[in-house]
């Protein structure tokens, strides 16, 4: 740098801005080494021979001589990329291991922003920045930094440098080991490194898939979540939220729709008199029209006049066109009396029959009724009354005794369509909730894998 431009009386000619990159020759192999952060860089590892040079000495003293072929980082030294609005240049690269997994750390530099780290665990990239302030531990639990709460993830572990190339603002050496302790919150890790009495805190933010790859021209990675990082956000968590919101909306919709469809529509009905112990009676309700698609049909009978008697109802819903018929039956009955426990009554005077999934079309409903009087009525208990077996012996047992052919009971048969089986609603709910439940299990599985290192201590990587 020269101060010549300050000469008084001389209009300074604007010189092109200097480059940050200064090529020098490796004193070991003679190859060209680009110094990218002159003045701050302390160690330089020659990309040709791997020798470690002391950048603080003007003659680039060789600290460690090497002559082996080097690996090239996936993102070459000198690559510039824009990450989250800031331009960074790759100036250093090291590979490190905790003796179980290996990862790469790129040292990034920007003359106005200083340094950052790009950490690549082979799956995903993290952007690391040194903390200016020490984290605090307000309640002795976890750590607070940058407004985030972190909890400790596992025990401190040694981290060893296995390979270096490029330049660093500290003295790097292969084999150097530091102790690292991790603290995590979803999406961010706080890494505490202890080395020779010096402690540094780095905040690592996990980058989106493809973010660093796009910025630095590295090949994209396949998204997979089999071995999540300790601070990795569960990809299923947002899906989980979505799935449950959508599931709940669908469930509510199901209830609303079924409520509307469930508002049954009466489409036919008729009333007749059934003669107790009389002949069978056949009733035809013609032209029951069902809409296209499938409908539920409910056939209700109402024989409120029954007393100690029953009506058997056989239904046959017959398609006028195809003569296909769907058969069903119901029984309307009512019994009462009194015994040692007092008066009792039982039976359903309004049986209801549901037929589901009836195709659209015009149908006739043929109803066959036969009404019967129960002769066991009286003060004795019905179950022990031998008259049931005997049949006709006690014609005076009830008011039906006034004449077998004469007593009638009015029976009303109505046909409704629509309405949804409760069973169908449950089925619908299950179908709707399948996806949210799958996502829930995937999320739980992810979280289990994320914390697997904590419980087992061994990783199959």
């Amino acid at each position, binding site marked *: *740098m020269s101060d010549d431009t300050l000469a008084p009386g001389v209009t300074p000619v604007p010189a092109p801005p*200097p*480059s940050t990159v200064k090529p020098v020759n490796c004193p070991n192999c003679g190859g060209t080494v680009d110094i990218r*952060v002159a*003045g*701050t860089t302390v160690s330089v590892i020659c990309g040709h021979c791997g020798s470690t040079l002391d950048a603080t000495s003007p003659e680039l003293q060789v600290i460690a001589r090497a002559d082996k072929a080097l690996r090239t980082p996936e993102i070459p030294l000198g690559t510039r990329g824009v990450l989250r609005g800031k331009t960074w240049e790759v100036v250093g690269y090291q590979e490190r291991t905790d003796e179980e997994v290996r990862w790469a750390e790129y040292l990034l*530099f920007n003359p*106005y922003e200083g340094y950052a780290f790009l950490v690549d665990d082979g799956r995903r990239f993290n952007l690391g920045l040194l903390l200016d302030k020490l984290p605090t531990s307000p309640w002795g639990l976890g750590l607070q930094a940058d407004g985030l709460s972190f909890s400790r993830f596992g025990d401190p572990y040694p981290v060893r440098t296995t390979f270096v190339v490029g330049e660093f603002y*500290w003295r790097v050496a292969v084999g150097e080991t530091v102790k690292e302790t991790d603290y995590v919150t979803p999406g961010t890790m706080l890494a505490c490194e202890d080395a020779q009495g010096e402690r540094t805190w780095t905040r690592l933010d996990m980058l989106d898939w493809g973010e660093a790859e796009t910025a630095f021209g590295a090949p994209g990675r396949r998204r997979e979540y089999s071995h999540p990082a300790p601070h990795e956000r569960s990809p299923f968590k947002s899906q989980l939220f979505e799935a449950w919101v959508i599931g709940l909306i669908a469930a509510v919709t199901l209830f609303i729709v079924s409520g509307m469809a469930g508002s049954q529509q009466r489409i036919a009905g008729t009333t007749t008199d059934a003669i107790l112990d009389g002949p069978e009676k056949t009733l035809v309700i013609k032209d029951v029209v069902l809409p296209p698609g499938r409908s539920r049909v409910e056939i209700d009978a109402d024989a409120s006049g029954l007393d100690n008697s029953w009506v058997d109802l056989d239904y046959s819903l017959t398609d006028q066109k195809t003569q296909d018929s769907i058969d069903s039956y119901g029984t309307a009955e009512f019994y009462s009396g009194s015994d040692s426990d007092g008066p009792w009554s039982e039976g359903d005077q309004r049986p209801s029959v549901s037929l589901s999934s009836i195709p659209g079309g015009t149908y006739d409903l043929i109803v066959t009724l036969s009404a019967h009087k129960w002769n066991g009525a009286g003060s004795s208990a019905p179950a022990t009354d031998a008259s049931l077996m005997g049949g006709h012996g006690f014609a005076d047992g009830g008011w039906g005794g006034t004449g077998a052919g004469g007593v009638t009971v009015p029976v009303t048969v109505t046909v409704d369509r629509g309405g949804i089986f409760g069973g169908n609603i449950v089925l619908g709910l299950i179908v709707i909730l399948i996806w949210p439940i799958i996502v829930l299990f995937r999320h739980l599985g992810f979280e289990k894998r994320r914390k697997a290192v904590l419980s087992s201590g061994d990783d199959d990587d």
Partner: protein
Amino acid sequence: MLRASCPNCGAPIAFRSADLPVKVCDYCHSSVLRTGGNLAAMGKVADLPDDVSPLQLGVRGRVGARGFELIGRVRWRYADGAWNEWLAWFDDGSTGWLGESMGRYMLLRQVDPAHVQSMVVDRMRAGMDVPTGTQAMIENVEYWASDVKQVSCVASEGELPFNALGLSASSVDLMSADEHCASIQKAAGEDVEIYAGQYVSLADIAATGLRAFEGWPMPSYPA
């Protein structure tokens, strides 16, 4: 402002304040010491290395409403690297230091040792080692010694409050639980000098007049 000529090369030099008695001549790099109206060339300062620093003399910044300009620099070296201390001349005539190390910046002001209670000061005065982790209370902020090293001045430029030529000292860096940081230095035969302040970014101080570098977008910070 005292205008004069360099006693070594005759180039014009200026002193803006009696508090800044040293000026490194822009032309011959002599360290010129002013004593009253007398100027003396103390020797030549080594050339500053062409470092990749965005700072240069004339850069302006501010802390809150108070603006400053960088008018001098001392480059220090220790066993594992080097850093710059830029002299900030505030608009009210006071001074501070903008430390530039490992791409990070610390804006520090000198603190009266009477406002400091620490074993660090006592041990440094007694010429003893300071273990890292030693506590210090500086202006009611709690610090811990994070780095202890021997430093020496390798080069300087511009206007300075002292003659940095050949200066070497013991230096202790201190960190706090918030953004505060501090530095305590002691040169042989001198008392401790204590500087305290905080980490800043170039955006924090809204720096203008920064050096441009080929291929790097120049940041523009809201004033």
